[in-house]
């Protein structure tokens, strides 16, 4: 019904309307915050790491976002893309893949998904720094 139906794909609107894994994580192993100099949006990603044998994997992921529909949907879908995945695999996730998983973003909104991939990179770095 929304006039914005054409602005965003169904998938984006679905994640925007029902974001997965939203909220703060008090006991996160890694936290990454990224902000867009373009539009002022801010995204914070929390990750909890566990081990399966030798391999580290993301057990829990949560996010908090101040931003537009694309920023919120990018955050939400990112958490679903990384939960349960090995750290090595997660490190290879790019902005492009986030956009692809969302069924595309309008050209002026591509920068919003960059927030998500940057926050992920920072959260992993934060975890690795803490570990070291």
């Amino acid at each position: 019904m929304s006039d914005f139906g054409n602005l965003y794909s169904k998938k984006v609107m679905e994640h925007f309307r029902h974001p997965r894994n939203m909220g703060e994580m008090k006991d996160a192993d890694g936290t990454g915050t990224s902000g867009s100099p373009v539009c002022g949006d801010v995204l914070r990603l929390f990750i909890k790491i566990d081990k399966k044998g030798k391999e580290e994997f993301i057990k829990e992921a949560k996010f908090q976002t101040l931003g537009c529909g694309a920023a919120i949907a990018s955050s939400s879908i990112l958490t679903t893309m990384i939960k349960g995945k090995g750290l090595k695999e997660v490190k290879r996730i790019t902005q492009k893949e986030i956009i692809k998983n969302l069924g595309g973003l309008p050209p002026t909104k591509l920068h919003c998904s960059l927030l998500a991939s940057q926050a992920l990179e920072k959260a992993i770095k934060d975890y690795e720094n803490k570990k070291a």
Partner: protein
Amino acid sequence: MKKVYFDHAATSFVDPEVLKTMLPFFKDSFGNPSEVHFLGQEAKKAIEKSRQTVAKFLNSRPEEIIFTSSATESINLAHKGLVESLKGEGKIHIITSGIEHKAVLNTCQHLEKLGWAEVTYLPVDKFGLVSLSDLKKAITPQTRLVSIMYVNNEVGTIQPIREIGDFLKKLNKQRKKKIFFHTDATQAMAYLNCRVDYLNVDLLSFTGHKIHAPKGIGALYIRKGVKLIKQQDGGRQEFNLRAGTENVPYIVGLAKAISLINGGKKVKKLTKDLTDQLLKIPGVKLTGHPLLRAPHIVSLVIENVESESMLLLLSDRGISASAMSACNSDLLKPSHVLEAMQIPKNLLNNALRFSLGKNNAKEEIDYVVRNFKEVVSYLRKLAPRL
């Protein structure tokens, strides 16, 4: 789902009475007004009657009104047509404000690019007001046009058009070269005094679709004696200032819409009620002037809430509102109006505008306030603490 339309500053529904008045001119009285036969003359008469209605509303003469397709076209014709008519003088100096509609700003930039004009963009104070003393200081011997909007479309601030008009009228008596005064009255038409003798303007632009006429019709008032060069060449329609077969049904509709303007007491009361309730919510602030504001616009910034997600969630609840933010503009730039008003950077993308109209009702205010509160608190919960 309940539907509440609070975006009348963007566009308005066509009044059923307007539509009814227009319909015969599509099918029965469809003649070309330039033709001699009875159908042509019927159409011609309808246009001239409409011109009289518009003229009466502005307290001008009918021959000072021309019909265009939009306020944007009127603005383009007023600025470009005037500057072109003065071209023999060399570069013309124009004074406008930094918070004008893009129709004015981009037209001025076009004239600058052509090398035909030098433009001064006046600053505004934190309420979005242009000051007469800034304007006085900007005037040079080359100044030939001042163009200031009557009501700002984003924040609703009413500019001192009458004061500027009075000042320029007096100043012109001492000047060899007259300074012409244009105002974009688009957001003022339904609610404020737009008589040209009251405002002392030489040129006034407006559009129909903000006052319950359809999109695609506007008008320009041109004071007798002001010479414009036509910008659209062809036939000699509209006193040889705007070529093209007249859009008869829309012209008739515009006149009908103007005849239905009633001052907006009800809208004023509803807007005040909505404003009072919203401003009670923590972190919600009014933008624009607290008193000198149009009676249909509630413009806000909301701490920790981004405009677009607010608009989307309100839309999901049937509420149509509007906002200018970097993230929903094609150029990824925040509102030039809020920037000019020096709204803090962290609030530039947190703006929201409700604009009311004559069919809104008290219970819609309550519905919007309730949903506004819910959406704000949800989005704040979603946002990280910084």
